[in-house]
């Protein structure tokens, strides 16, 4: 018996079988997507917040499916995974028809012609509708062209424990500037030896949040992060704002602690305001609403947008929906976006997620009427300053954020940190 042919005869089929398995698995699984007929509309929502998922999958989407007699495939993608997943889906040609993303991503998506210009669709809306949406639509524009329809509006304001301010004899209505708030924070800070046991004031200092807090401060000082596509954060206003920011956390007169801790995204019960670890904190509308819902007995007040030179707060269009430029279901995609931004649905969505509704008319809704916290945020919408909508913003933000961290930690002076960030950002814009 000759051996080699035996092996040849057997080894080859074994290899073939394995290759075939691969191919079969590949074929059979992708074949499912290729069936013609009425393909479901695929939609990706950013973020995996539980109440949002419940609301969207159990209530909103079934309603849309019934109204339009279609099937909608909704996927919720964790924010951290959104960019890799979306970009590889674009590279593969498997990107969804409609997808949600932050306004920060808009400029890059537009530059690469990945998203549809929505101007024509927006113009099909009634004038009344457009006026109602006007304030929030701006956040979804790149160079004046509409690409994104926001799902909600979000903002950050300073919230306080009314009881703590009262104990310290501080009248919240006297706090209108950042300097007022800083002085109050000095009063409210409690220490045991050198450790702060109760922070007077906390701003977001975790990754990315640093740049958001800084945006609020520099805007209040009369400066801005970017002037068009030019770096503007290394201005004297920027340095002053960052000096104020770092002094909150530095040295013997510090009023803040736990630098870098992501309190903003903590569960309501873990919020420093709730645990009593802080008297005042910068809060998102979402976190403020969560606290109000979870701790109804706690008296939480919200200060208006604070100023150095002019009142300003970080805020604007939150994540919104884009239409994939390659979708074959453009009409249905727009129908879905229109549905999500309709008065009733958009308010329900804002309520479900604890955000500010995108429509001005929602101020009359029971959701807003019943919440003092939300009204406070809504009232400040004119003072909201969003992130710049420029290409490579995420990259610029990250270098700024890293340098802000250096300054906050006392490793670099505010001036040097902003200069370094400006240099790096110029490199990103230039190359």
């Amino acid at each position: 018996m000759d051996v080699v042919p035996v092996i040849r005869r057997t080894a080859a089929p074994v290899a073939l079988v394995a290759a075939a398995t691969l191919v079969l698995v590949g074929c059979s699984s992708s074949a499912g997507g290729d069936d013609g007929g009425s393909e479901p509309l695929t939609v990706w929502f950013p973020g995996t917040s539980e109440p949002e998922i419940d609301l969207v999958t159990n209530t909103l989407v079934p309603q849309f499916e019934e109204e339009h007699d279609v099937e909608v495939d909704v996927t919720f993608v964790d924010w951290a995974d959104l960019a890799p997943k979306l970009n590889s889906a674009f590279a593969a040609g498997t990107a969804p028809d409609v997808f949600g993303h932050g306004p920060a991503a808009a400029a890059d998506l537009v530059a690469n012609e990945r998203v549809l210009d929505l101007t024509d669709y927006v113009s099909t809306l009634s004038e009344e509708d457009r006026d109602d949406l006007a304030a929030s639509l701006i956040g979804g524009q790149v160079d004046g062209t509409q690409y994104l329809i926001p799902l909600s509006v979000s903002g950050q304001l300073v919230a306080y424990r009314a009881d703590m301010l009262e104990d310290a004899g501080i009248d919240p209505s006297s706090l209108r500037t950042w300097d007022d708030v800083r002085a109050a924070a000095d009063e409210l800070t409690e220490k045991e030896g050198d450790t702060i046991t109760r922070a007077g004031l906390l701003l977001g200092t975790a990754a990315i949040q640093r740049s958001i807090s800084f945006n609020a401060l520099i805007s209040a000082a009369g400066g801005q992060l970017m002037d068009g596509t030019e770096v503007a954060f290394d201005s004297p206003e920027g340095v002053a704002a960052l000096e104020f920011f770092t002094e909150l956390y530095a040295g013997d007169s510090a009023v803040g602690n736990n630098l870098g801790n992501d309190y903003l995204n903590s569960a309501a019960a873990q919020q420093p305001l709730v645990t009593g670890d802080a008297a005042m904190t910068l809060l998102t509308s979402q976190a403020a609403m969560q606290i109000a819902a979870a701790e109804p007995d706690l008296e939480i007040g919200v200060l208006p947008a604070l100023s150095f030179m002019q009142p300003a707060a970080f805020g604007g269009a939150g994540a919104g929906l884009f239409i994939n430029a390659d979708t074959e279901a453009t009409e249905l995609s727009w129908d879905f976006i229109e549905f999500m931004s309709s008065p009733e649905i958009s308010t329900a969505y804002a309520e479900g997620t604890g955000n500010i509704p995108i429509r001005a008319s929602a101020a009359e809704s029971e959701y807003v009427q019943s919440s003092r916290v939300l009204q406070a945020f809504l009232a400040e919408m004119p003072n909201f300053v969003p992130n710049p909508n420029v290409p490579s913003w995420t990259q610029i933000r990250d270098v700024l954020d890293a340098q802000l961290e250096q300054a906050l930690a006392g490793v670099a002076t505010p001036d040097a940190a902003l200069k370094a960030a400006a240099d790096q950002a110029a490199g990103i814009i230039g190359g």
Partner: protein
Amino acid sequence: MTLTSTAAGELATSSPAGAGARPAKARTRRSGSRRLARAGFLFVLPAVIYIVGFQLVPVVYGLVLSFTDYSPLARSGPEFVGGANFAKVLGDPRFLHSLLVTGQYVLLVLPPLLILALLLAMMVNKPFRGVGFFRSALYVPHIVSLTAVSMIWLWLYSDNGAINGLLEGVGLGSQAWLLDPDSALPAVAAMRVWKALGSNMVLLLAGLQTIPAELYEAARMDGAGAWARFRYVTLPGLKPILMYVVATDIIFLAQSFAEVFVLTKGGPLESTTVANVLIYNEAFQYNSMGSASAMAFVLFAFIAAFSLVAVRNFARRP
């Protein structure tokens, strides 16, 4: 015959017991050797084809990409830019810093990992009731995904997590483990030691079991104490497997990503920004596949150099 015996000689050098474990008599039938060699070639062929196709070809492809500008978001394909990516990457202080952090991380994990794993391996090298339990228990962290264990540790390290709870319980103050630039990297490293302890232990155990008991007996008769037996019998016997363990540990540790991504995202003050975190951001957040590939190749060279030096050092010691 010459052919097969060299191969057998090669095998013998990798034997931990030293002393030509494989006698050259293995192949007696001269006439069959060519037939056997052909059969051997066919046995390894499918694996070779696969690894060339899906490990080496991608490396070459990646090298090509590192000389291009390519974004998955762009509709156009990769565009040739020459050595620009390498120039940019090697002149980027953040990337060089990340290589430094990668090195620190390897050095923080490796020594305690090896020492603890060796101690435990020596303890479970003796058959006693329940030894199976200990071997398995210590191995369990290895089979749970890094993402899942990182999440457990995220909670353990958190403000109100178990570690601070225990510290407060015994009267010590709590510590912001992952927020302090001094403690963040060691905290991540501690998790990694815990995770890799079992697999290292099992490999070293395997090494220990190949050391002939006679050698210990002979050493004992010569009056060697426990330390001397460890120094002159155990360590030399373990050398091959130790080299293997050190090399693979360095390779895997220098590629760490998941635990840093879940626990610290590279912060605070970039104290935990290992190279792969930066590469990930470059590739997937900023869509610069070309410069990400260039970074990956520099990391590759770094890993290769690091593990070569380590293995050389190890090999030189008596």
